[in-house]
C-alpha cells in the first residue's frame, strides 16, 4: 500500500515497517539532486518532523516523516548518487525505512487518486 503527503513524500507499508521517498512530481520540481542527507539509524521521527534533506544545484529542501517511527534503514546508494532519486524516485531512489510508530497516522495520508488530484489542482 502506498500513501502520500501534501508535502510530496510517499510511504510504502510492508507489515510493521514502511519505506519513505519523494514523489516523481517532487523530484521533477526540484531538478537534478546533488546532495541527500539521510536520517541517522535509530532516530525517532515524529509525523511531520524534518527527516532528510534533498538539495538541487539551486536549493535545499526538507523531507518530512509522513508518520511517527524509528529509522531502521537508510539508502546509502542515494547518498552516494543523489541522481537516483531523480531517475527512480519511488524505486531505487527511496530514502529511509521506519518501524511504524503509530499505524493510525497512515489513515490521514492520501491515497494515489487523492494525491494525483492534489498535483493536478496545483497546476
Amino acid at each position, binding site marked *: 500500500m502506498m500513501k502520500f503527503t501534501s*508535502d*510530496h*513524500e510517499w510511504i510504502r507499508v510492508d507489515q510493521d515497517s514502511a519505506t519513505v521517498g*519523494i514523489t516523481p512530481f*517532487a523530484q521533477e520540481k526540484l*531538478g*537534478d539532486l*546533488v*546532495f541527500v*542527507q539521510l536520517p541517522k539509524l535509530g532516530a525517532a521521527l515524529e509525523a511531520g518532523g524534518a527527516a532528510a*534533506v*534533498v*538539495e*538541487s*544545484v*539551486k*536549493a*535545499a*529542501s*526538507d*523531507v*518530512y516523516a509522513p508518520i511517527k517511527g524509528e529509522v531502521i534503514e537508510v539508502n546509502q546508494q542515494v547518498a552516494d548518487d543523489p541522481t537516483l532519486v531523480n531517475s527512480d524516485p519511488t524505486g531505487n531512489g527511496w530514502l529511509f525505512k521506519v518501524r511504524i510508530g503509530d499505524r493510525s497516522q497512515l489513515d490521514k495520508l492520501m491515497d494515489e487518486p487523492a494525491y494525483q488530484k492534489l498535483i493536478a489542482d496545483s497546476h
Partner: protein
Amino acid sequence: MTAVQSPTQGSAQAAAPLKRTPLYDLHIELGARMVPFAGYEMPVQYANGILKEHLHVRAAAGLFDVSHMGQLAIRSRGGEVANAATAFESVVPVDLLGLAAGRQRYALLTNEKGGVRDDLMITRMDDRLHVVANAACKDADENYLREALKGTCDIERLDDRALLALQGPMAESVLTSVTPDVVGMRFMDVRAVSICAADCMVSRSGYTGEDGFEISVPLAAAEIVARKVLDNPHVAMIGLGARDSLRLEAGLCLYGSDLDTETTPVEAALEWSIQASRRAGGAHAGAFPGAAIILDQLKNGTPRRRIGLRPEGRAPVRHGAPLFADLQSRDPVGVVTSGGFGPSVNAPIAMGYVTSKCATAGAPIFAELRGERVPVRIAKFPFVPPKYKR
C-alpha cells in the same frame, strides 16, 4: 517536502505585474520554467535542467536571455565622448579617459561610504558610453546618474534593446558563422555589428568564466537573432539557474548577495577593477564617491575580505550560513554570501566574507549547516580556470 532555502536574490517584488522580454514565447516553446526575477518573468531552466545546462556551456555554447538587465547610453552635452568619460569618472573608480573606443571595462558604481550601488559593464564607443546595469538596480542607477551627471551628460535609457549572451568554448565559431564581423575581436572588445540585418552591438565578454559574447540587439530583432544562433546544433538555451552556478564557479559576484551598498570594492577583492590612474598618485586619482575610504583601504587593507570556500564534505553551504574559526567559538568570523553546487567542479563551492586575519587560502574554518559545524576550506578564486581570449 518543502523548500527550506531558496535564492533570496531577485525574488518577486511586491505585486507589480511581471515584465516579459521579447524572447518570452521562445522560452515557453523551449519548455522553460519561468520564475519572477527582479520584476521580470525569466527562465530559471529549460527541459534539460540546471546541471546539464551548466555543463553544456562549459563544453560547447549556451545562449542566455539577459534582456532584463538595464542598458544606458551616456552622451556629453557637447558631443565629445572624452567629456562623457571624464564626467562618468566622477561616479566610478575606473579609468574611462584611458579606455580606447571599442573597449569595455567592469566598473563599480560607488557611494559616499565606499559601498557599491551596482556593478556595471561600461563600453566606450566613438560618440558615447554604453552602460549595462543589473536588472534590480537599473531604475535606481538611472535616477542617480541623471542627478550625478546633471548638466554634463544626457542619459538615454535603451528600453528598445534586448541583451543576449553567447558563452562557451564554441561561442566564437558559432557567432563567426552568423556574422564574420566579429572575427579578430578579443576579450572586452566591442563592435557595432550587423546580425540578421539588425544593428547590434557585440562585446567579447560575459559572466560565466568562459569565452563568449554579449549581443545588444533591437527588441524587434531579438527573437530572429536568438533563433539564428540556436539553429547551430552546438548551442542550447541556458536559464538563470545555470548562469548563477557558472558565475559562482568563475568567482564572480552577484550584486545583492556578494556585493551591496555596505561592501567596498576592496572588501569584495575587486580592487583589480580600479586602475592605477584612479589610485593615489595616479593621473586622475580619487574624485569618485567614497574615494577617501577606498584609497585608504587600498593602502592599509580592510577588516574583512571576500574569499572562496570549498566545503570538505558533499553538502552545499548556502547564502546566509555563518562561518566560525573553530568548532567551539560563539562569535562568527564571517558569513557565506553565495553557495551551492559547482557542476564542473563536481563539488560544493561557495563565497563569503571573513575577517581579514582568517582570510588565508587553505585555512580550515567551519560553516554552520542545519545546526552543525562542517569544515570548509578557504580557497582561491576562480574555482575553474577562466577561458577569456585576451
